[in-house]
């Protein structure tokens, strides 16, 4: 009914576009941490942003995908299959009508992942599915998105036995964002990369073709975590809308606070997802035979990264003292320009945090020894003592031809805060 394999991975740009929406891989650690970071700013009404961001991308994609059939049952089946293929869980849309209805499920990525990561929540947490279902209802029945309402009334993360989503008609109870512009991609230059015995392109091609196993609960349990293939422009919308609200509230300081949070989310992504990959049997089977040095490990993991839909990353330089990577068409930049035009500051937060995270894992964390990727290890690598810190030196969202990130070893700042280990507060 729905299979990502039918949509070819574009190796010229390292993107996977499905129904006009670029799809990227992220784990429950990143997904839940990013959401919580946004929710924790209590002076910003984040729920309409989180739900509206999901509704926007789901509606756009499904309007495209469902145009192939007018049959409502077939449309519902496609949506259910897409949701499952994304690793989002299981949904049954059988009870939905044009007027709305309830969707009940015992398995959603966000509800289960949140509880695994943060423990029990006091309130429902699956804003993504709420928005996704709003977009789905509108797309299935050809309704304006602005004429659909959605809310979550029960959530597994609170200890409930199921998630319940209630869909109805009426003025949208979430943010409706301005129409996005068409995506603009920059040409990829023939940059020189350091010589290595690692066959980077073959790794990218092999990993992009590797099936992601979806279990009976509709979840992708792999690398010791729950993985999803989600909408790059969901992450973009919720991040950049939040950043703009922060800017309205606190001026330039708002941007800096948001940037710190999003770069931290990138650290978490690298530590858990990329760390999980580098300690997996899949890594040992596909990549390890080519690796001799720590620099090889760096080339290997960025070759894998290139299969995740984030854009095309090139290694410009890497050694124990630092690393530079150049990314063409990173999904954050491409998405930002579609939504808000040219940026006045760098916004490629994921890869900034991701690069520092990779350097910390390889050069300080000895990832080749397969350490346990515990919260304590994260704390030691990122919050205490010397650590690699990364910064954007160019950003495609600002009009540069590519995004470039430089990571260097830095001494700890005296006032560094720990963000990762606090239990849920929402």
């Amino acid at each position: 009914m729905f299979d990502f394999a039918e949509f070819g991975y574009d190796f010229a740009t390292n993107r996977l576009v499905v129904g006009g929406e670029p799809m990227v891989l992220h784990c429950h650690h990143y997904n839940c941490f990013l959401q919580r970071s946004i929710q924790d700013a209590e002076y910003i009404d984040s729920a309409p942003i989180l739900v509206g961001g999901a509704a926007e991308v789901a509606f756009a994609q499904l309007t495209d995908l469902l145009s192939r059939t007018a049959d409502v049952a077939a449309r519902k089946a496609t949506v259910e299959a897409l949701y499952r293929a994304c690793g989002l869980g299981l949904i049954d849309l059988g009870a939905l009508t044009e007027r709305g209805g309830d969707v009940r499920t015992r398995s959603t990525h966000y509800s289960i992942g949140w509880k695994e990561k943060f423990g029990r929540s006091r309130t429902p947490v699956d804003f993504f599915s709420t928005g996704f279902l709003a977009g789905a209802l509108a797309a299935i029945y050809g309704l304006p998105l602005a004429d659909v309402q959605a809310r979550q009334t029960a959530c597994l993360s609170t200890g409930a036995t199921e998630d319940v989503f209630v869909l109805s008609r009426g003025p949208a109870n979430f943010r409706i964002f301005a129409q996005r512009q068409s995506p603009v991609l920059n040409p990829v230059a023939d940059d020189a990369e350091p010589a290595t015995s690692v066959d980077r392109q073959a790794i990218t091609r092999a990993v992009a073709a590797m099936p992601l196993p979806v279990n009976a609960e509709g979840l992708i349990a792999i690398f010791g975590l729950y993985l999803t293939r989600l909408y790059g422009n969901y992450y973009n919308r919720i991040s950049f809308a939040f950043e703009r609200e922060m800017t309205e509230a606190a001026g330039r300081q708002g941007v800096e606070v948001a940037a710190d949070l999003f770069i931290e989310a990138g650290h978490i992504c690298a530590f858990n997802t990329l760390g999980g990959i580098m300690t997996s049997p899949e890594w040992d089977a596909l990549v390890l035979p080519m690796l001799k040095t720590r620099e090889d490990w760096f080339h290997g993991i960025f070759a894998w990264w290139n299969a995740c839909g984030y854009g095309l990353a090139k290694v410009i330089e890497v050694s124990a003292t630092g690393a530079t990577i150049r990314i063409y068409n990173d999904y954050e930049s491409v998405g930002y320009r579609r939504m808000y035009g040219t940026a006045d500051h760098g916004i490629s937060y994921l890869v900034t945090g991701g690069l520092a995270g990779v350097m910390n894992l390889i050069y300080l964390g000895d990832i080749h020894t397969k350490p346990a990727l515990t919260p304590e290890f994260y704390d030691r690598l990122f919050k205490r003592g010397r650590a690699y810190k990364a910064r954007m030196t160019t950003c495609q969202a600002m009009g540069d031809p590519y995004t470039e990130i430089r990571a260097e070893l830095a001494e700890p700042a005296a006032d560094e805060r720990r963000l990762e280990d606090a239990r849920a507060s929402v």
Partner: protein
Amino acid sequence: MIRAAEKVYDCLHRERYRYTLGAAVDERLLAEYADTTEFRVSVYDARHLLPQARVTFRIEPQDGGFLINGALGLDYVTITYLRDARMAATRAMQESLLARLP
């Protein structure tokens, strides 16, 4: 033969072990799970792209009680067990099976 069993940190509601075996994993392990009514075995072979690569596999029972990850030629497998009432019995059964291998 199991040479070592090491509990590996898993952030999900599961327990994961890494079993170092007495010999490299070969087809005999997959043959133990050949009954498709009981097990789902998925194999990924990328050697046409990466000649040095090994063939990876995942083995899951239909009830999802455990998950075996590994690759032919590696000397270890990881097994992740769902934390439920059957976990101890499931683990004993899988370890017994691994112990019978060379």
